């Protein structure tokens, strides 16, 4: 266990941080937009639409992310000729694009459920109170439902973002040199797994720490009415959502 070695490793791994963060931010933002669309579609009156969205959500939450990445990166290579004709091959042969696509589609599935859960958790009495004073439709949604739902959603979506940071590690399996990719290379070169693990782990924990702080700030800013009371404890199920 040599400290100078850990430090050198730490510095070497930092090169992967921008890649990790890029992957995280782009996939989370894209996924969030997609999740919003899916969540709205989930409420559609058409049974077919609802079924399609549920199937999408089930497919991406029920299978390992690794399979999803490989399916897009390697699997679509089977249709190289077709994609070339559509001028799309340039995108689909790039591992970075494929990983982003896979991560976005994946987080969109979880995000859809989070948003849906948040909307459903708005107490009916509050909506009723809004109706009682004459609000309806878009106004009701905008002024009452969405703000209340958003406050419920932020902490859970925050957790999802942290999970996506972990998800970016899978990019290393398709040659992308983010933190875990560099770590794997270092381990296979030096065989000093413990030290490299410690350094890489520390970096991820630091990223998580700052992310949690950030999310906490957003929560705090959104909830002036809760500042004097203790928040409710997480439901048991919410503690264990992951990919």
């Amino acid at each position: 266990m040599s400290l100078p070695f850990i430090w050198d490793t730490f510095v070497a791994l930092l090169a992967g941080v921008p890649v990790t963060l890029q992957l995280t931010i782009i996939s989370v933002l894209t996924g969030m937009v997609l999740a919003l669309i899916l969540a709205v579609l989930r409420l559609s009156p058409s049974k077919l639409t609802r079924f399609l969205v549920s199937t999408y959500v089930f497919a991406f939450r029920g299978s390992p992310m690794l399979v999803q990445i490989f399916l897009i990166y390697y699997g679509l290579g089977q249709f190289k000729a077709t994609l070339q004709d559509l001028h799309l091959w340039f995108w689909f042969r790039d591992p970075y694009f494929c990983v982003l696509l896979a991560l976005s589609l994946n987080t969109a599935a979880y995000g859809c459920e989070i948003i849906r859960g948040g909307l459903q958790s708005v107490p009916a009495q509050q909506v009723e109170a809004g109706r009682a004073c004459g609000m309806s439709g878009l106004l009701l949604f905008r002024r009452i439902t969405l703000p209340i739902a958003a406050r419920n959603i932020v902490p859970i979506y925050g957790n999802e973002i942290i999970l996506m940071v972990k998800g970016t590690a899978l990019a290393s399996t398709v040659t992308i040199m983010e933190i875990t990719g560099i770590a794997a290379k270092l381990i296979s070169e030096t065989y000093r797994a413990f030290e490299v693990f410690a350094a890489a782990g520390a970096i991820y924990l630091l990223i998580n720490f700052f992310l949690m702080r950030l999310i906490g700030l957003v929560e705090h800013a959104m909830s002036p009415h809760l500042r004097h009371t203790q928040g409710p404890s997480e439901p048991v199920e919410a503690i264990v959502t992951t990919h």
Partner: protein
Amino acid sequence: MIDYLKLFGTGPDGWGDDLAIGAAITIAVAIVGFFLGAVFGSLVAWARLAGNLPLRLFGEGYTTVLRGIPDLLVIYLFYFGGSAALGAIMGLFGNQGFVALPSFAVGAAAIGVVSAAYQAEVFRASFTALSKGEMEAARAAGMHKWLMFRRIIVPQLLRHAIPGLGNVWLLVVKESALVSVTGLAELMRTTQLAAGSTRLPFDFYLAGALIYLAITIFSTLLFAQAERRSRRGFREAMR
């Protein structure tokens, strides 16, 4: 035209039997990992709930660290680190070079260590959800701690924990796909080999995904059944 029947069949060129074996190994490593995680997770939960300050800090640190670090990194640690440690020991006996650890053991251990962090949180939340009144009634009836634990606390803990444990199980199944990096011939690795060998990656990765989904559906049904049985008395109370 590809003959799918032959491709996924059990003949010499068919990958059907290999995929089935892969799926079986996936489930096996997931089960072993899950149980290891349950044992270790309950210890960590106990440390967080009933331990002195150093134990509580250890428990909290453990759950924070292992839920914040990518599972892939943990697997690399166990695989390369374990092999290095084993290599060092073997080196004492004059063995040179890389000694690979059995990938099943490594995979199950890594899964166990990570899922323990999640299971600890499930157990901890379940414990705090226990009804104080019912425990008081047990004390008032003269039950000593071990009897109360056995007859009142454990059944209720399980009732509260089953949904959360169901989620952890699904997590474990998906994590088992990462164990493929150790070379273990579970479903993911088998799919990879088939995809490479037949140059039909889409067909096989899709098949793999579908098999994982089948495992997910089956597990979800199983846990829903378990939940229903454990909730026998509580359906009314949930209204």
